[in-house]
């Protein structure tokens, strides 16, 4: 099944980003196809490349970037990103900043959409 993931909340502050990541990994392990992960609202901060958490903690940006590198399409909403200071200079590798239309296309193409947020 094709599953789309919408992430509305930033990293660390709430568990939403962790749940979205854990869910995405579990769906892939079950053999499902991830239609895409779309970051909207504070969710765009997940894609902040300059993130440097303590060394004994998870690096949320890096984790998403690696997932993108493995072939999962990561899209960061441009309008939401601009508000929060995320642009092409500071966005993680393997994620693309694009318009909200990508969310609609992802939602239409997928069999399911699930939203994580605060």
């Amino acid at each position, binding site marked *: *099944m094709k*599953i789309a993931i919408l992430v*509305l909340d930033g990293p660390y502050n*709430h*568990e*939403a980003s962790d*749940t979205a990541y*854990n*869910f995405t*990994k*579990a*769906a892939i*392990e*079950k053999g*499902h196809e991830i239609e895409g992960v779309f970051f909207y609202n504070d969710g765009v901060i997940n894609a902040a490349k300059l993130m440097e958490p303590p060394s004994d903690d998870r690096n949320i940006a890096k984790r998403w970037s690696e997932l993108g590198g493995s072939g999962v399409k990561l899209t960061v909403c441009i309008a939401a990103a601009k508000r929060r200071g995320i642009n092409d200079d500071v966005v993680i590798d393997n994620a693309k900043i694009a318009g909200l239309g990508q969310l609609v296309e992802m939602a239409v193409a997928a069999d*399911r*959409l*699930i*939203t*994580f*947020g*605060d």
Partner: protein
Amino acid sequence: MLHTVNKSPFSHNNLESCLSFAKEKDAILLYEDGVLGAQAGSKLESIIKEALKKHTICALKEDLNARGISKTVGGIKVIGYPEFVDLVVEHKVVPWL
């Protein structure tokens, strides 16, 4: 349909609201702080028990463990991420964030 609830029912109205809009037979998943509602013996236990007559209620094991919750209300199904994925595959999702 699958209703997903991620807020503590002691501090937010999400579960209450979910229960008033969910139709009979709909499944409910408690995850993140939502799992606090699964604790046995809380002041919400009677509401959860009543809801169990109409709904399958699941609670995410990983979140229960994180919060040290081992005694859950009888009838709540404790599931892991793979079963969470199965629930989403089987149902359209209504998130109560």
